């Protein structure tokens, strides 16, 4: 009997439940390949795999389902095909973005008994976490970075969700260090990637008022602002695609801007002065060896070649994001960082090293992925209550796990396995009352924002003014002194399938304020606003204590939390102290994490 071992472990009845379960695996990369193999061998009935990516050469040393011949093929479909020879499961691969609401509306997610996250970015993790909260489906979250890894089962309503604790905030440097006074190669890499590249090729605003510039020097602040705006003008130049202007761009960035910096004498009293790169010329011979540190002339050549290619691409792609696996963007950033480093008399780095740093990656380790995927699939059995002779565990009796020895946190524990914590009552995601609002296609064209606001006020007994925030884009749609959009139709204010609206009480009555409500907008057949039946509690407002301990809570209750905005961690009102040691130790591969070698 083929499945004897699973039957012995789970019992016949549970085994049949497993065979009839449908599960969702999000991500077919390092953890995803391993997880897919485990889920197939365990015998889950139907497994859907979603991944937008295609296979890159650099994946092959750890994503064991992929071969040289698969390069440039879709990860999801290739992974499914590669494991088919041992599979008794129905495998359904989707080469798509899990956040695409047209392809994966909320209803699509409801067919699964559990979601497995095997993702490498925060945005998608948060998204699936949110979907799990709406549908009250269990989620198995996991992540690795180098030798560090963790798994965390999330049972909506009963245990901490992904956003209950602050995630490692991106390692940041004061703007002035990056923009004016770099003292390490990494400062130049951050400058090239996060500032120069994004200003030239991605749309990006000017310096915002609350950004931490890390300096009080008015002259310097003025210069930083001016430089940003000038660079934006350079982007216009690049969009025109005139290659003869590359010279101007080069001169602006590596000569004129440096000269302006030199003019601020205050900066150089205790620092070595930079030297503008006068008399540069392009002689066209690129160096192909990505593992060596190039001469400055080779850096200049690489810079020009990369910028030419990116200029060609820009009209059709509209904007280009930095991706360490996109050679044009990598070469641009590497060369720009090195030219700047040389101007500031700092050591230069090889393209390969810069890729590691700019990609924010500690090299992925195959064995860590294997261990974490093993734990994730193992933990799912207990979450789904499929183990033989085991009583159904209370959610807070379930365990998470993280690598303790490999992360140098313990000598005598290979894994640490704390039990799951209950939800953080101040979590900006899972503490909020939520429901699904289904509207017909026609409704979006005919209903006005005011109709929705009025209906919500009535339905949830808001005593007065409410504010409406589109959480997906962080746009304020209406509040007590912003009524401009109320007469627009929902379609006109870009409310569509998948939009998440946060409705908050603005009226502080004697009884307190009504808790906020989050609505997921779904498209369906039935017409008219039928708001979901939800219990929206009245929350007593507590006068702020003299020591101000309640200020955080008050801010939260007024709905002033900005969620999912990594660029602005300061606005997240999460309790630092509630962070478990596990999380503190973890460095999940977030976009902006920079690891020094």
């Amino acid at each position, binding site marked *: 009997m*083929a499945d004897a071992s699973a039957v*012995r*472990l789970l019992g016949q009845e549970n085994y049949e439940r497993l065979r009839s379960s449908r599960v969702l695996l999000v991500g077919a990369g390092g953890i995803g390949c391993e997880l897919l193999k485990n889920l197939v061998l365990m015998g889950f009935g139907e497994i859907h795999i979603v991944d937008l990516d295609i296979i890159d050469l650099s994946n092959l*040393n750890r994503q064991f389902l992929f071969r040289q011949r698969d390069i440039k093929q879709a990860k999801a479909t290739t992974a499914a095909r590669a494991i088919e020879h*041992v599979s008794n499961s129905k495998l359904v691969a989707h080469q798509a973005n899990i956040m695409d609401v047209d392809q994966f509306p909320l209803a699509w997610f409801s067919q699964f008994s559990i979601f497995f996250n095997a993702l490498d970015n925060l945005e998608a993790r948060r998204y699936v976490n949110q979907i799990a909260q709406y549908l009250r489906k269990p989620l198995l979250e996991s992540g690795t970075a180098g030798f560090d890894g963790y798994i965390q089962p999330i049972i909506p309503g009963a245990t901490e969700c992904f956003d209950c604790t602050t995630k490692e905030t991106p390692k940041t440097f004061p703007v002035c260090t990056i923009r004016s006074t770099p003292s390490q190669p990494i400062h130049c890499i951050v400058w090239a990637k996060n500032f120069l590249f994004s200003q030239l090729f991605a749309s990006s605003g000017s310096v915002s008022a609350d950004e931490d510039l890390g300096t009080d020097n008015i002259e310097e602040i003025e210069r930083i602002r001016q430089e940003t705006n000038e660079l934006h003008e350079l982007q216009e130049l690049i969009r025109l695609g005139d290659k003869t202007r590359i010279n101007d761009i080069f001169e602006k960035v590596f000569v004129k801007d440096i000269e302006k910096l030199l003019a601020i004498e205050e900066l150089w009293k205790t620092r070595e002065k930079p030297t503008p790169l006068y008399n540069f010329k392009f002689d066209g011979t690129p160096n192909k060896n990505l593992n060596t540190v190039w001469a400055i002339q080779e850096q200049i050549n690489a810079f020009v070649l990369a910028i030419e290619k990116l200029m060609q691409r820009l009209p059709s792609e509209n904007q280009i994001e930095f991706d360490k696996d996109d050679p044009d963007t990598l070469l641009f950033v590497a060369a720009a960082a090195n030219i700047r480093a040389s101007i500031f008399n700092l050591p230069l780095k090889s393209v390969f090293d810069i890729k590691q740093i700019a990609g924010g990656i500690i090299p992925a380790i195959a064995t860590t992925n*294997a261990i974490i*995927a093993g734990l994730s699939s193992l933990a799912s059995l207990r979450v789904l209550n499929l183990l033989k002779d085991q009583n159904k565990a209370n959610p807070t009796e379930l365990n998470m796990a993280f690598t303790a020895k490999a992360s140098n946190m313990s000598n*005598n*524990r290979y894994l640490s396995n704390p039990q799951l914590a209950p939800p953080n009552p101040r979590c900006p995601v899972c503490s909020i009352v939520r429901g699904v609002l289904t509207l017909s296609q026609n409704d979006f064209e005919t209903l006005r924002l005011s109709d929705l606001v009025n209906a919500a006020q009535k339905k949830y007994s808001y005593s007065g003014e409410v504010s409406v925030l589109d959480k997906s884009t962080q746009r304020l749609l209406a509040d007590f002194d912003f009524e401009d959009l109320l007469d627009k139709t929902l379609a006109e204010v870009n409310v569509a399938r998948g939009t998440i609206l946060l409705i908050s009480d603005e009226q502080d009555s004697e009884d307190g304020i009504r808790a906020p409500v989050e609505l997921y907008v779904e498209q369906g057949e039935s017409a008219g606003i039928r708001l979901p039946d939800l219990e929206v509690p009245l929350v007593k407002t507590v006068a702020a204590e003299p020591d101000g301990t309640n200020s955080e809570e008050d801010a939260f209750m007024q709905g002033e939390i900005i969620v999912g905005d990594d660029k602005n961690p300061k606005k997240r009102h999460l309790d630092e102290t509630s962070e478990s040691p596990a999380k503190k130790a973890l460095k999940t591969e977030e976009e902006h994490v920079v690891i020094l070698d």
Partner: protein
Amino acid sequence: MAAQARMRSAKVLLINLGGLGTEITKNLVLSGVGFLSLIDDHIVSEGDLNTQFFLSKDEIGTKRLDSAVNRIQDMNPRVTLTVDTDDFRQKPDSFYGQFDLIIATDVTTEEAIRVNQLTRKFSVPFFLCGLNGLSGFIFVDLVRFDATDEKLQSSIKTPLGALSQNREVVEVTEYLNEEQSKTYERIVTRNLYKPFEQVLKEGTLKGKLTRRQVKRLTNSVPLTFALFSYRNGYAGVTSHDLEQRAIEACVQLGLPSENLKQEYIDQFSQQAGLEFAPVSAVIGGTVAQDVINILGKKQSPLNNFIVLDGISLDMHIFEL
């Protein structure tokens, strides 16, 4: 990179390509180990198909290694793969002397003891690992191993001397990391090991755990130990018999036998030697990670016994 070069020249022997052997093979081949020899004389059975992914449905009845070898090589053509479909028990002693490291999976206690005697004879690092359903274990015998770890110097210098029964700091050197302008320490820790047979006879946890740790210790530890006492396989395991042996194991290990739970005893008696894919992944990943670490001569290796409880995800390291 010296570590990479050492990896590429290393000769590793893996005994048995079951579920666990498959995981270890995958991880070592991906990591670019130089020479991997596989020895396994089993025939593909239906049961193999839910623990292994180098085999396929239409290969039932063929030799496991013959079927798997192409899929293994395909993962990384640069690894020199040798396959041997002989019975490892019939190999002459000298066979074991040609490797830099030997991993035994899916073997009986008696077989493990013999292979370990030979690895001792040739001073070859030895890993033994196995699965018992939702639980799995790893035993390590590196004979003697000096590990080098680097860490930022704290206010107190790391002192020389014994860290625990099997581990001792023998050398500490300071050096300055110029890029960060911080002082680091390079610490050499000597790890001493005991052979499997001796650990079975004398290994104990007495005085090595706090009372709280003893109280919370998973039943998987004494039960794994009790299963070792079935020297030639698990054919005769019953719940009652296992319980008696688990009580004896508790006495030797210095654990209170009243903590033994019936559900764990039943689980282990029903799942002795049973392979399960997720547990293979965890144990196989852990073994491979440590093997790669040792071949690169880097950080402190495992010393010397690990048990995974697949329900609570408890995974302690014990010095026995």
